[in-house]
């Protein structure tokens, strides 16, 4: 696990709890505003996130959506960064209930490791529940930054 890489892409400042949204568009706008606030994107990127959401929903399952911009909007990304937004009351997402949004601004590939971590967490119901309900930024970072079932990592542990 590369803590530095994870830290650079997702920081405690980019993790927000206890948010409310009237609908998914409101949630996507908050996700865009967070990326702007983090200095990761130009303000117009937030509009591209709405556009992207209109073409295909970014709901990925397990109560999580991953709003992000379009391929054309990559030019509006200043640096690759992620934001995590928790909506404890849930947001209606075309009939699905979203409790957590992971906002994505990517100009390169630096976020791949964290998104792989997210995919792994969501495959494990207990971990997914922790991710959706925790209010501790360190726990979010720990869940998303953990080793990705890396065989080399397992070998190191078994020979230690």
């Amino acid at each position, binding site marked *: 696990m590369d803590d530095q890489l994870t830290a650079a892409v997702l920081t405690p400042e980019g993790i927000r709890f206890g948010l409310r949204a009237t609908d998914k568009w409101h949630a996507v706008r908050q996700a865009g505003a967070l990326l702007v606030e983090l200095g990761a994107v130009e303000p117009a990127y937030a509009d591209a996130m709405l556009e*992207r959401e209109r073409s295909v929903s970014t709901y*990925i*399952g397990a109560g999580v959506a991953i709003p992000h*911009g379009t*391929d054309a909007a*990559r030019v509006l990304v200043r640096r690759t960064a992620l934001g995590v937004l928790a909506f404890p009351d849930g947001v209606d997402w075309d009939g699905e209930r979203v409790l957590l949004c992971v906002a994505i601004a990517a100009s390169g590939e630096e976020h791949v490791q964290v998104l792989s971590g997210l*995919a792994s967490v969501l*495959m494990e119901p207990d971990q997914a529940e922790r991710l959706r309900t925790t209010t501790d930024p360190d726990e979010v970072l720990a869940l998303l930054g953990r080793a990705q079932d890396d065989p080399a990592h397992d070998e190191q542990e078994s020979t230690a």
Partner: protein
Amino acid sequence: MTTIAGADVSKLVIACDAGMGSSVMLASQMRKRLKKYDVAVEHVAVNAIPSDAQVVLCHSGLADRARGTAPQAVVVPFQVFMGDPAFDRVEAAIRDSGTLDG
């Protein structure tokens, strides 16, 4: 309609609209599932599918665009990002050397 034998698949491409979100997550999952086989798994934007992609997994809403940019490839559409039977179909075809078409 294009067809390929599972044993001939050496490059699987996961395409999404922007190539920065869902395709990244799905590629990491498929890479794990196909670790035992000699298959490269990449994630790209649907408008940038490489010409040597043999099999393309993409959301059903993007399948027509994927077929437009990658006419040589077998395009396998899916509906949901987690647990879609399309993922099992691709893995089974590669594992058992069955055929994939789409």
